[in-house]
């Protein structure tokens, strides 16, 4: 159990590439933090800096009130789950779990107890004498988790642990990881590029872009009030629609409630309604380009009158209109996200 504090962390590679530029983050004890961002945003580098697998070139990192900048990974009291599991292929599952404990000099009965406990928790008790290659992907994933569990560390580090699993298993493991983390109350840092994973797992979500933090907050905060254009575009699927203020003004649809300085207006696909709501709203007309039924919901791709800009609309159930038909969309004024393109930030008014 530990608090992790990052203070102005920097990572500059020998070639001069800056992977992480000034990240400060205070992670509370027992919190599950998810780092999310596009590839190359520095999220994995940051995680590996915490793990001790990458050197820290600037700033301080402390785990449990201890500055660990120069400590070896094994001395940082962390455990890591790797993307490719990184199980030792020549060792049985039991030895895979026990290896780190043996290196720590933990007594044999204690190793036995912890391995059995972790195996029971992860339901891998039947495979303890098998080698990793005799296991399925999901089972290997559990073993990798078990290897982290037995160490009883003060923090778990997950590096895209579910990306090698098929979709169904991924959901199942996601739920299990969350349950396990809640039960153990261990501080966790989880890296993913899958935003659904990020939204569902996180206590707090950290969106990274180009080595910097774009926004930190609970998943719902980030979804409902993205502070930057990047976060607005990154969180939410289908992505938020962006309409220029000039277009709205030309169509006479520009609401006067938006703060000054707004030149781009974001609208979530699910805030675009097919029938006018009672509350104040703006209306846009266009033409249906494509209908995309996706089970419980449907996506309607609309091209707006006047500039043919494509817009995505999400509705529950099945659409009743035809492709090519004219359509009018209504957006409550409260659901608009005002942005300024020059600063790339939300305009608050």
């Amino acid at each position: 159990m530990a608090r992790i504090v990052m203070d102005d962390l920097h990572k500059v590679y020998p070639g001069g590439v800056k992977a992480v530029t000034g990240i400060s983050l205070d992670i509370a004890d027992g919190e599950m933090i998810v780092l999310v961002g596009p590839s190359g945003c520095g999220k994995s580098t940051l995680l590996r800096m915490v793990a001790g697998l990458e050197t820290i070139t600037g700033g301080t990192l402390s785990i449990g009130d201890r500055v660990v900048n120069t400590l070896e990974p094994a001395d940082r009291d962390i455990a890591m789950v790797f993307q490719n599991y990184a199980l030792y292929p020549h060792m049985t599952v039991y030895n895979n779990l026990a290896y780190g404990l043996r290196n720590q000099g933990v007594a044999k009965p204690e190793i036995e107890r912890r391995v059995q406990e972790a195996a029971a928790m992860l339901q891998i008790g039947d495979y303890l004498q098998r080698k990793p290659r005799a296991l399925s992907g999901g089972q290997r994933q559990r073993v990798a988790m078990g290897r982290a569990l037995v160490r009883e560390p003060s923090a778990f580090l997950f590096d895209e642990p579910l990306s090698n699993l098929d979709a169904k298993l991924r959901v199942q493991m996601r739920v299990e990881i969350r349950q396990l983390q809640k039960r153990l109350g261990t501080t966790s840092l989880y890296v993913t590029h899958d935003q659904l994973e990020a939204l569902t797992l996180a206590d707090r979500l950290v969106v990274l872009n180009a080595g910097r933090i774009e926004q930190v907050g609970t998943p719902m905060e980030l979804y409902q009030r993205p502070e930057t254009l990047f976060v607005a575009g990154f969180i939410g699927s289908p992505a938020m629609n962006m309409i220029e203020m000039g277009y709205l003004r030309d169509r006479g649809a520009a609401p006067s409630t938006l703060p000054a300085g707004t030149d781009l207006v974001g609208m979530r696909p699910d805030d675009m309604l097919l029938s006018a709501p009672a509350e104040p709203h703006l209306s846009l007309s266009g033409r249906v380009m494509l209908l995309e039924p996706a089970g419980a919901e449907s996506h309607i791709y609309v091209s707006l009158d006047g500039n043919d800009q494509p817009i995505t609309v999400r509705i529950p159930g099945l659409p009743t209109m035809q492709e090519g038909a004219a359509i009018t969309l209504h957006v409550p004024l409260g659901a608009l996200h005002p942005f300024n393109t020059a600063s790339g930030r939300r305009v608050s008014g």
Partner: protein
Amino acid sequence: MVQNDRFGTFLAHLILILGVGIVVFPVYVAVIASTHAPGTFLQGVMPLLPGSHAIENYSEVIFQGRSTAGAPPIGLMLWNSFVMAMMIAVGKIAISLLSAFAIVYFRFRFRIFFFWIIFITLMLPVEVRIVPTFEVVANLNLLNTYAGLTIPLIASATATFLFRQFFMTVPEEMLEAARVDGAGPMKFFRDILLPLSVTNIAAMFVIMFIYGWNQYLWPLLITSDEGYYTVVMGIQRMVTGADSEPLWHLVMATVVLAALPPILVILFMQRLFVKGLTETEK
């Protein structure tokens, strides 16, 4: 490319059988020759059927030797060859494992430079550097010793290269997992890399054992004491050493005996050997 084609199968088998025939025939002749009486070869016709002197010839080679023909009993020569081959194989593997480990896993100055230096020595086999090497060994008073026989041959660019290539295929996450698990460099080497390399080590062992066993020029140069003769050079001495006609029946018996240990090594390590050359356990 596997086709169910009668003619193709026939042709493939024909070529294979021809190939096997070409390889096996000289060996067959050697075995046959070792079973005949001394005079048979002087008639100029090579017999192709076994003779009746097998036991006699082999027991003479094994138990008596022919000191007049420059051949001590074969037992000692086989032992010398075995010691030399073992020391070379084990030494080469130990040194190349460590140097490959250093080159792949440690960041030190001129790392690539050192790798290329090692690699370039591939182009300098014993025969090329034999005079200076002999000089060095002689000055170190290592003539007529096992150390002199083996140490100059132990450095191996081939094995270093092979192990380097293998180590580079071991996922980096394996090293990172080991670091998180508290394994230092040597512990990682011993607990993770070595067990993963077992099949490669076996393959290297077979190749290097045979390399050491077949050394001819080097032992010929640095041994003058019969107690350090190896069997391969011993055969040569038997052919040229006598003042009479070479005793072909004894030479061939020695040849057959000298070929046995490498064959045994291959037979015993075949499974690992093939595995080491074809697959990696990951």
